[in-house]
């Protein structure tokens, strides 16, 4: 094959489409291809053709189970509501909630009163999605802490959205190479993962449908430190830095 100088224009364009389809380009080169993609139907078709040519390779990739709460996240993102849910971000009502939550971070001592007001907020907030078909149950709250650990969190179960709002007030910092995983420990004592808790602020975590029935008073929530990506074994492997029992408000 020829080098760049002899290459007819079509081949140069097709080659660029192939490079883009493979994802090889970075920086300015990628930005240029992205602009071309937006502007030029011919280029778009060339990229599509290359993607189609390489697509059979994806058959080699091994499947992996996504976390159980991911479907709930997708569902929320595609459910129309009064406020659009941005892709890849939490809903803006969560942002609103986070603002409110931020107001009372640091007042952990008054946690019971705070949890009660949060519960009220959850039940009455104006932008709640369409009500669930059955009447909402009472919210639950767990104050999570542990001896020898600075971590303190409040976890509140929002029955309307079937999710937990986990608000750290101290001692839960992002740490490279590590992840925080939230566990539910029902009466049988076997921890079930509720997913990874991303440190840095309050988070809403969808409760996987099969675990909804387990969320009741006296069930323990625990936060452990795990390797990046979460516990490899499905049970906590690192230290539990905070735990607490759910209670009705």
């Amino acid at each position: 094959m020829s080098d760049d100088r002899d290459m007819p224009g079509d081949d140069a364009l097709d080659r660029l489409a192939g490079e883009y389809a493979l994802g090889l380009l970075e920086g300015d080169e990628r930005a240029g291809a992205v602009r071309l993609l937006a502007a030029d139907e011919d280029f778009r078709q060339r990229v599509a053709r290359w993607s189609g040519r390489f697509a059979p390779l994806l058959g080699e990739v091994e499947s992996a189970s996504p976390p159980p709460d991911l479907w709930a996240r997708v569902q929320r993102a595609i459910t129309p509501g009064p406020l659009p849910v941005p892709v890849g971000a939490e809903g803006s009502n969560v942002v609103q909630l986070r603002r409110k939550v931020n107001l009372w971070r640091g007042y952990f001592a008054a946690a019971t009163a705070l949890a009660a007001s949060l519960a009220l907020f959850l039940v009455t907030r104006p932008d709640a999605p369409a009500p669930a078909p059955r009447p909402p149950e009472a919210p639950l709250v767990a104050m999570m802490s542990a001896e020898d650990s600075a971590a303190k969190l409040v976890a509140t179960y929002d029955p309307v959205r079937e999710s937990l709002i986990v608000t750290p007030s101290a001692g839960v910092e992002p740490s490279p190479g590590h992840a925080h995983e939230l566990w539910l420990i029902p009466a049988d004592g076997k921890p079930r993962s509720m997913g990874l808790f991303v440190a840095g602020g309050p988070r809403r975590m969808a409760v996987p449908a099969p675990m909804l029935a387990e969320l009741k008073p006296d069930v323990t929530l625990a936060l452990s430190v795990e390797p990046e990506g979460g516990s490899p074994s499905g049970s906590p492997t690192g230290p539990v830095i905070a735990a607490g029992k759910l209670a009705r408000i």
Partner: protein
Amino acid sequence: MADNMDHAAAIRSGSEEGRRLAGTLGAVARGDREAMADLYERTSAKLFGICLRLLGSRTEAEEALQETYVAVWGKAASFDVAKASAITWLAVVARNKSIDRLRQRRPDATAGLEAAADIPDSGASAFDVLEDAQEGERLSDCLEELEDRAGQAIRAAFLDGSSYSDLAEREGVPLGTMKSWIRRGLLRLRGCLER
């Protein structure tokens, strides 16, 4: 989670599973939420595998997977059963979402600009290939015909999300050398596939 389908089986456009999935995707295009749940159940493990392989981090792969299904919900109507199998269409959407993330991850001069631009989805809208089981073998044969390093580099780019600079570094060759290997390889590959 129900069993995810076998990719190779699904990709055979004539297979029953492939037809069923194309039907499901058609229902999703009409806004059928139950079909969407069904689609997720049958394809999420495959697509999560792709995101995870490319991104390497579970957290990022989860976000990419979420974006993938949101995109699928929004534009399932652009899936054309005459042009691609449903699983391939979905797999390419997942791959594109992952590559977008991968390339936005690195701080560089255009990162902000790129993040701001809504990257159009090539590849997800049209394929001019009809895949069947032979299509994969054909591709493998053609990749093998390339000089060793070009074939391997192309596979690594597509499956692992390696960029030109990643590949050059890994092979210990100048960036320009890697580019000319791959560029030559791409045109030879096209020639071989069209033969």
